[in-house]
């Protein structure tokens, strides 16, 4: 079962069968909270029953930048978590440019224009018993929703999270709740282990091999995870980023190079065929965005 669906996800009966087509444009969503959770890192909660009910871990929403009409393109932001009972959707985002800065200044009560849920999320195959969830920096954002879902499915989760420094750390309590083991690194050792999360990952892989790995983070990190997955023969899914236009598969601007069986490659759409891909297919040297 693949999380998310390339066709209609209007009204999904259970997570696995998304069939009926519902015309659903963009949502005008009321913000219920928008707070700083680390320097330049914000968590926003907004109301969208449609998204809260239909989203899968690894999917994203595509948000119109409010106010400033000179910025035409929506911004893709992963779904951090959803609360189907209340219709609340959470995102966690870093202020890196004009769009995210404007977003960070929005207040509860104001409305944003959101498209989603979009893309192919993480695939949680039947029979999986244990999983490593590896995240770096703002790449950790989509992994909370994933960890919660894995826990609900009874899968043993080891979360390996890397941050630059103590101040940059966010979301640990979530992973304390949803993972069986939580391992944290910081580049400078100001919290958890000093070093890169991939060093820790290699040590862990030497101890025990999970059934599957899930990862999201900066490209250099992804490259190491990809190599380790290959070396240790662990199936691995990674979430990619690329600059986007439509977000729904129509414009072909968000391409990533994906290996084809014949040894060549083709450009797939991060927005529609991804953002989650199997790591063995992904040609990361072609990736252009550093998370």
């Amino acid at each position, binding site marked *: 079962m693949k999380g998310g669906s390339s066709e209609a996800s209007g009204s999904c009966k259970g997570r696995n069968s998304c069939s009926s087509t519902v015309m659903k444009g963009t949502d005008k969503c009321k913000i219920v909270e928008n707070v700083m959770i680390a320097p330049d890192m914000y968590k926003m909660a907004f109301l969208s029953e449609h998204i809260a009910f239909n989203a899968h871990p690894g999917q994203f929403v595509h948000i119109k930048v409010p106010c400033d009409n000179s910025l035409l393109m929506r911004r893709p932001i992963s779904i951090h978590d959803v609360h189907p009972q209340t219709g609340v959707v959470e995102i966690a985002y870093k202020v890196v440019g004009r769009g995210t800065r404007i977003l960070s200044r929005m207040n509860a009560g104001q409305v944003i224009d959101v*498209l989603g849920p979009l893309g192919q999320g993480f695939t949680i195959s039947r029979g999986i018993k244990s999983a490593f969830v590896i995240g770096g920096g703002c790449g950790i954002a989509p992994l909370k929703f994933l960890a919660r879902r894995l826990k609900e499915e009874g899968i043993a989760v080891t979360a390996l999270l890397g941050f630059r420094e103590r101040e940059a750390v966010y979301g640990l309590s979530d992973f304390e709740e949803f993972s069986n083991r939580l391992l944290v690194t910081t580049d400078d050792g100001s919290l958890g282990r000093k070093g890169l999360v991939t060093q820790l990952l290699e040590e862990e892989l030497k101890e025990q091999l999970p059934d599957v790995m899930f990862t999201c983070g900066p490209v250099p990190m992804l490259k190491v995870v990809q190599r380790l997955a290959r070396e240790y023969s662990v199936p691995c899914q990674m979430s990619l980023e690329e*600059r986007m236009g439509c977000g729904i598969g129509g414009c072909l601007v968000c391409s990533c190079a994906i290996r084809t069986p014949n040894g060549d490659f083709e450009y797939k759409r991060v927005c529609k065929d991804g953002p989650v891909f199997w790591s063995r297919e992904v040609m990361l040297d072609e990736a252009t965005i550093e998370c």
Partner: protein
Amino acid sequence: MKPRLNVEICGISFKNPVIAASGTFGFGREYARYVDLNMLGGIAVKGLTLLPRKGNPPPRIAETPSGILNSVGLQNPGIDHFIEQELPQLLKYDTRIIVNINGNTIDEYCRMAEKLRGVPVHFLELNISCPNVKQGGVAFGTDPDLVYDITRSVKAHAGQPVIVKLTPNVTDIKEVAIAAEQGGADGISLINTVLGMAIDVKKRRPVLANIVGGLSGPAIKPIALRMVWEAAQVVSIPIIGMGGITTGEDVVEFLLAGATAVGVGTANLMSPTACIDILNQLEEYMVQNGVGDVKELIGRLETE
């Protein structure tokens, strides 16, 4: 009373003048869950080539003030795949299908036109203007003689009316429009994207892997409008106007300038429901301004 929105191009009627522009609407498939494709005047499909094309490496998009640059580079599955795999689902909808074709040589255009003979699509759109293909692309559209030649040649092979899509990257759009008309074009569409560039000052590199790309969106609307207006002064074949349309009032501007129908491109990337939103706004404008028939607007700019 509901205003009348239908227009006609080469004897083929369109429900309304709003056409999804090539390259921004895929083959309609992805948009079908957001808009009822039956409501569109027409759909210009993603630019096709004789053989499948991978397209350019990423990044393929850069955001600029009120515009975007793209360098998709005509990624497409090839014309055969389109006819076999994509067209059938599109034909389920009651709208006009415009097939955007791109060649490196005149012969390639003609062979694509041949392949489309008898295929139930409504128009061929000759893209002689895509700035992202190194061979051919730009050269065809900027030389009036070549525009004349290619139009004549394709007309000889085409089973459907032929629309020639012009590039704005020329000194004199009127010359090129006239060349297309004299070559036998049944209509012209304009404008394609304007060649542009963006630089990442942190990395000191172009934002696009392809270095340059095509500028589209509201930023180019004044340029597009001027060119549509100029072309309308010198040709009598119908014009499909486009470039930066994001509202119903933008559509009115293009119609007044002389377009019979309009293309909506970048707006589809801003919101998947853009074409329908724009259509609704157009109707609203007409109601508010007492325009009963959209044809009353075409070419009716007062310049006295």
